[in-house]
């Protein structure tokens, strides 16, 4: 199964990973604020992840590690 890990504290909440995920796995956590003051990324539906790494490819800040 695909496994996602995030460097949550460094996420800038730009949302590009959310936009480029073909499976709608990711969301910006509107109820959380990280150290940098942004709503960080979070996997809302991790079971749908196909480990394509589109999210990580488009993330400007290397927040996401994808394993399978």
């Amino acid at each position: 199964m695909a496994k996602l890990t995030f460097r949550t504290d460094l996420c800038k909440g730009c949302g590009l990973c959310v936009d480029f995920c073909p499976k709608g796995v990711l969301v910006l956590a509107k109820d959380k604020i990280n150290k940098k003051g942004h709503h960080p990324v979070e996997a809302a539906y991790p079971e749908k992840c196909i480990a394509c790494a589109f999210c990580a490819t488009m993330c400007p800040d290397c927040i996401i590690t994808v394993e399978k």
Partner: protein
Amino acid sequence: MVVFEKPKALADVSMHYCPGCTHGIVHRLVAEVLDELGIEGKTVGVAPVGCSVMAYNYFNCDMVEAAHGRAPAVATGLKRAMPDRVIFTYQGDGDLASIGTAETVHAAARNENITIIFINNAIYGMTGGQMAPTSLPGQVTQTSPYGRDTSHCGFPVKVCEMLSQLDGPEYLERVAVNNVKNVKNAKKAIKKAFENQLAGKGFSLVEVVSSCPTNWGMTPKKALEWIDEKMIPYYPLGVYKDRTAAKEQGGE
């Protein structure tokens, strides 16, 4: 199995770039190439003046800071003094195509054996969004509030097209980083630009069409769409010069 992780040559720190700024993607691609070619230990990067002025904090190889626009001259000196090292510059369009045009053109004409990563985001990012030589006709910036008027601001500088007129350079390619496919192509071009230097082939420049969501006044997503809608039609992607490929095809 790891499908994707931060490359080792990229420092484990927070970069100062704005949310969604594609400078971060290009930094990562350069770091991935340093990892894949196993050259981090013998590479020296040259940082510019511009938003990427602090690039020296983000790569784990040695880094030097150049005065505004002078990175190709500094890189020339480094490479000639230490030919066994891999030397690259990382420069914005205000840096490379405005104040540093002379250094760029002559390093290319001399076919210096260096690698240049050139970020074309059509604006001066660091100083607050002034018109750059690469700003599109009609583009609204802080210094062209009614849109770039070519009747008194002239026309954009197309760096790959311009340098391709010289006999000097080995390799010129324009890529973009606004979607997954383009990012993958950008990586290939950047890798080739480093491999050319390792093979002693000479001046290799990759122009990366990039976004500046902050000074374009757009969301990160809209900025990537604007690259497709406005930037790429004016700055077509592709290989503008590849002397080795041309020779192999019996050209030249």
